[in-house]
């Protein structure tokens, strides 16, 4: 759970580009010697925004998740290869019909206040999420086709989850942080003071939260995985990305995301290690298929041919991203690039447009504020499309306003095209994005309807064998790419800069560098 939280946190923290040959020479990664670890060391992290609540059931923002990641544990978590591994659950089995999952819990785990962790806490956590009066957005994760998953405690250390039907992605949803029943039972979770002074089972205990400034946590000596090497972690709230970078270079924080333009400089800077790794996200230009402009597949394909993805990546990311062709990411086990790529070909684009009988196409691209890369991409796309005679207007909107348009329950929705991104979950199941039933409420906000896709999606999520699922998804990506309901734009790389005094990092990957937080240390 920690890992997922930190992974998400780091993923969304930054995207960058690699360097063209420059005057600065990148230095090699220099990691500190564990023998030099400071037993009273403090790690200072930067959070990109305000923390709302420190309660995994309620929070939705990455800052809160980052804090929860070190305070709470889930039944399971992920490892560096993005595989699901045990955490509070030491093992689990599935019934032959795929509907009953039985989790055996680890004995002897204590809450930060000394009480013993039991199955009752697990059931309490999931019941709370499923409670409609609790403002938890995760509720849908535990409802399959309208029916709730039932959680039962068989004994103090065994929990059962009874699903209405087999559901492959279920395991990836068991990373939810477990909250203590003895402290929250009977209280109104939405407003409980617990949310400002949480108690968990994780490697670090909550110490203080100075509103708007920072949160600090201290070592949990009784952590079940062993005593953490760090004495304290301080998470500072620095909403501005540039200020965070300044703070890193001034030694005020130990870690931050790196924008493409600073990559070269930081790579060559003494005292700082820079890591690049793949992220589980992709950015796209989505067409509103309910809008007559885009109903002809040829129009969409023409625009795909008119897109020079290499230029986009080079200009915006300086190479620290790669062009995207499918609604998955290379790092996912279900990825396949055996799809139609629509390589840059403006001549073909014009041809297709003429074939479709379209002259003087003009439309508006919406994208959200606060994401420089997307804004720039819109400008570049505007130019690229101009070359094939298509006029594009750009509207950069506030995030809430954009979501309101895209998530509006009415059909048809009021937009032409949007430039956004998806952060993919660990499980490749993309039902909510592509299934025809998920319109107009759901993530299929473009009104995409393809019965072949619907069938493949349903099969993908009910098949439990991974090898088989891989084949299903490969086919799925192929069908979707042929339709081009989105133009898939790029896969960003995550780039993180960490000061050399920080050691114990995990292998760079989408799970982030601080996967095993109890192993992290700093030198004096």
């Amino acid at each position: 759970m920690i890992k997922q939280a930190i992974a998400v946190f780091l993923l969304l923290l930054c995207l960058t580009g690699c360097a063209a040959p420059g005057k600065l020479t990148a230095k090699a990664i220099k990691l500190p010697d564990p023998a030099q670890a400071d037993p009273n060391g403090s790690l200072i992290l930067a959070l990109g925004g305000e923390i709302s609540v420190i309660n995994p059931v309620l929070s939705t923002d990455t800052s809160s998740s980052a804090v929860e990641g070190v305070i709470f544990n889930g039944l399971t978590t992920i490892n560096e290869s993005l595989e699901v591994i045990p955490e509070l659950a030491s093992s689990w089995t599935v019934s032959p019909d795929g509907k009953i999952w039985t989790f055996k819990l680890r004995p002897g785990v204590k809450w930060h206040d000394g009480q013993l962790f039991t199955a009752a806490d697990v059931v309490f956590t999931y019941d709370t999420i499923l409670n409609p009066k609790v403002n938890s957005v995760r509720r849908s994760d535990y409802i399959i086709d309208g029916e709730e998953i039932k959680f039962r405690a068989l004994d103090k250390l065994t929990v059962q989850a009874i699903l209405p039907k087999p559901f492959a992605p279920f395991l990836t949803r068991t990373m939810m942080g477990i909250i203590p029943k003895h402290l929250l039972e009977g209280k109104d979770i939405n407003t409980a003071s617990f949310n400002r002074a949480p108690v968990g089972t994780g490697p670090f205990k909550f110490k203080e939260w100075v509103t708007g400034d920072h949160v600090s946590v201290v070592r949990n000596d009784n952590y079940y995985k062993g005593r953490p090497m760090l004495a304290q972690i301080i998470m500072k709230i620095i909403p501005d990305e540039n200020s965070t970078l300044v703070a890193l270079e001034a030694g005020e924080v130990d870690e931050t995301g790196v924008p493409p333009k600073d990559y070269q400089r930081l790579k060559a800077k003494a005292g700082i290690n820079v890591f690049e790794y793949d992220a589980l996200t992709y950015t796209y230009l989505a067409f509103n298929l309910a809008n007559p402009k885009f109903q002809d597949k040829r129009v969409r394909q023409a625009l795909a041919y008119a897109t020079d993805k290499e230029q986009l990546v080079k200009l915006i990311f300086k190479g620290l991203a790669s062009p995207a062709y499918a609604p998955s990411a290379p790092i996912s086990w279900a990825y396949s690039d055996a799809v139609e790529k629509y390589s840059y070909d403006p001549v073909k684009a014009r041809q297709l447009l003429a074939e479709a009988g379209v002259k003087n196409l003009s439309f508006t691209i919406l994208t959200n504020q606060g994401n420089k890369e997307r804004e720039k991409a819109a400008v570049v796309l505007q130019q690229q499309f101009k070359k094939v005679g298509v006029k594009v207007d750009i509207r950069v909107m506030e995030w809430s306003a954009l979501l309101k348009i895209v998530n509006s329950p009415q059909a048809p929705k009021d937009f032409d095209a949007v430039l956004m991104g998806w952060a993919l979950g660990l499980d490749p199941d993309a039902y909510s994005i592509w299934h025809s039933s998920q319109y107009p409420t759901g993530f299929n906000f473009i009104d995409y309807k393809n019965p072949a896709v619907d069938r493949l999606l349903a099969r993908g999520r009910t098949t439990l064998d991974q090898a088989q699922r891989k084949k299903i998804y490969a086919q799925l990506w192929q069908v979707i790419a042929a339709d081009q309901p989105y133009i898939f734009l790029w896969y960003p790389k995550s780039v993180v800069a960490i000061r050399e005094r920080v050691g114990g990092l995990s292998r760079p990957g989408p799970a982030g560098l601080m996967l095993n937080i109890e192993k992290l240390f700093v030198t004096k």
Partner: protein
Amino acid sequence: MLKNKLTVFGLTILTLFAIVALLAPIIAPYNPNEIVDTETLAPSAQHLFGTDDLGRDIFSRAVYGARISLTVGLVAVILALIIGILLGAVAGYFGGWVDTLVSRFIDIMLAFPSIFLILAIQAMLTPNIYNVMIVIGLTSWMGVARLVRGEYLKIRELSYVEAAQAIGCSPWRIIFRHILPNAQAPIIVAATLGMAGAILTESSLSFLGLGVQPPTPSWGNMLMDAQAYLRDAPWLAIIPGILILLTVLSFYLIGEGLRQAIDPRQDYAGS
């Protein structure tokens, strides 16, 4: 008034900027929205102000940005003046319950944290240049109204007003044709200050992303994009900032000159 060197300085700058803004399409060497070169080039002969983070020519963007800033300033102030003069005149001239009502309304609008109103309205309407003008106009008329009200309260006691009333002129005629021309001096001064304020507000809004939207260039949103490049390409931030400064400064200097010309004894700065 023209004797004052500072005022002359202000007038010169402003006229220069106004000409540049009017002739933007002729003066700008490149299309302000087109990527014409490598990103973040320093100022050079080819690119007077350098290129921005996407490779667009900053000088051209600045020139078009001048259009935006000056237009916003003008329209916003005109709107504020219309509302302010109307309400202030009515309150000042008619007095009594009309005055109380209008004054209470002014109080409510003043009690409103204007930033919130601006932000909320901007969030409500899609942020674009027209809405920015309207919003700024709608939230900056109060000062003018109070000023005008004060003037009218003073002037209506004067004998020529009594005379006009005795003849049987309609109140509206008196308000606009008789009193207003005599109250115009402080109004004009307030107008120049208002333009300065409007330009600052627009740049602040654009800086926050709630004003003129990219890719349309406005000095404010150019500053927003420049934040990340403070260290690597400081000219991205310095240039638009100086332009805003000079423009606003010119308005202040002109306003100051006007004020001195009107009433050399009253050396007010205004708030």
